[in-house]
């Protein structure tokens, strides 16, 4: 009787091949998969959920033009103000489908950074940019990178100083 390679080394099943991987195939059966089917009704929440009451506050909340009213629940932090707030209001005149909406919000974010600096200074707080940008972690874990950045910064300042001196 001739014993073939296949008989001597029968192909192993996936389960045998992956026996060293703890938990392999535990959710192979769709019944174990929490998101199968993709949309499931009714939801498996631990208790009945009534519709949420309407939140009331005096916060100025910008609402998408794509929805009929404010949502029952919302965040109230950091209402729009200043020039960035004006830009954000302009952005919300356009729908989420309109690129202007998002680009104006990004512009407002950049303006808001400047407003944040002015706000800090007006309160007598000089922001520690080195600490806020994680300088201590950079120095500790990437000293060569920190040295390189410092050298580039000093060189840039020197160039500016030379340029200003020549203009005079």
């Amino acid at each position, binding site marked *: 009787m001739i014993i073939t390679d296949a008989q001597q080394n029968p192909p192993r099943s996936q389960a045998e*091949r992956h026996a060293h*991987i*703890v*938990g*392999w*195939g*535990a*959710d*192979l059966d769709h019944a174990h998969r*929490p*998101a*199968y089917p993709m*949309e*499931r*009704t*009714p939801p*498996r*929440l631990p*208790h009945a*959920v*009534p*519709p*949420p*009451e309407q*939140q009331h*506050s005096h916060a100025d*909340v*910008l609402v*998408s033009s*794509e929805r009929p009213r*404010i*949502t*029952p*629940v*919302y*965040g109230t*932090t*950091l209402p729009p103000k200043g020039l960035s707030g004006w830009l*954000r209001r302009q952005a919300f005149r356009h729908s*989420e489908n309109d*690129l202007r909406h*998002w680009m104006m*919000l990004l512009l407002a*974010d950049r303006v*808001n*950074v400047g407003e944040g600096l002015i*706000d*800090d200074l007006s309160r007598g707080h000089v*922001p*520690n*940019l080195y*600490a*806020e*940008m*994680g300088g*201590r*972690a*950079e120095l500790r874990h*990437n000293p060569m*990178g920190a040295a390189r950045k410092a050298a580039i910064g000093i060189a840039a300042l020197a160039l500016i100083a030379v340029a200003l001196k020549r203009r005079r």
Partner: protein
Amino acid sequence: MLAMNYRGPYRVRAAHKAEPEIEHPGDAIVRVTRSCICGSDLHLYHGLVPDTRVGTTFGHEFTGVVEAVGPAVEHLKPGQHVLVPFNIFCGNCYFCQKELYSNCHDTNPSATAVGGIYGYSHTTGGYDGGQAEYVRVPMADIGPTVIPPDLDVDDAVLLTDALPTGYQAAEMGDIEEGDTVVIFGAGPIGIFAAKSAWLLGAGRVIVVDHVEYRLDFVRRYAQCEVVDFKQVGDMAVHIKKMTDGLGADVCIDCVGCEAAGSFAHTLLGVKLKLQGGAAIVLHWCINAVRKGGRVSIVGVYGPTFNAVPIGNAINKGLTLRMNQASVKRHLPRLIEHIQAGRIRPSDVITHRIDLRDVADAYHLFSSKLDNCIKTVLVPPSALAA
């Protein structure tokens, strides 16, 4: 209270701000015991998510002890230690009724394309996040889950986003027994997607990244093959060579809008903001998957447009699935997996950092220093616990 405070791209600090209050009858106030920095927080940190206002507190992955509840809260009690899914959802709207909790229609007035999320810009509802000592938790009867007594809090905090997102990434790939699965990104989500691919019965799991220590970690932790995309020429061609010229059955994007690997995409999307970030991983997924294959996307992309090779996807007959994870939907099964010892999520935590040092924590994670995989922030009030 002490809280993380965003000051602009690449600039954050720990600062004092007013404690949150009950603003809706369904709210709770939670004293934070752990919060994580998520890879998607880096998109905020880098200034890529529209309507990220200066002064915001980030943090959508957190656990904490319930301090107070609103008058409409019936099931959550002060003193309970809870994990809080990153989605803020009502449980009642059209989408929640379909268990699409991440798509809740009633918690985010600012946009209809995304639900409410803690600490993730005003585009997701303008809520402050959990990188603070206290946080307002809306819909407190629905979102928070009491941490079972046999579950470690470090495992619990990873159930608020990272593990469910990795699991959903694999599940949306509709993995069948023996499938070859390619996962782009070896951060925490990619690592958990790799572990989950095995749970779902994959035959081969390949993880792609370019950071050596992350590839080493995922190879050891998830027992998968790895590819350093900087060491290969064309990523899609390389995957085809690894799969008899056919392509992978499933490709998963766990990277999102700040992907490295293409100078053109980085210049146009990340530097010049002419598209919603760098979409190179989407290109790799669509071009490296086999005809008729599945592409799953959990990497975060901004709402602005991206150049995506949709023509190839059509011609190849691909199924594309994508979403933010509906965390609550996955929790019972994932808690079972942890209790059964099939996965220990806290193994990915490499750094536990005092909230007061939040700026260093962000820089460490963002710049991938000190072999950082996952950073947990611990508020001073929770340090003794």
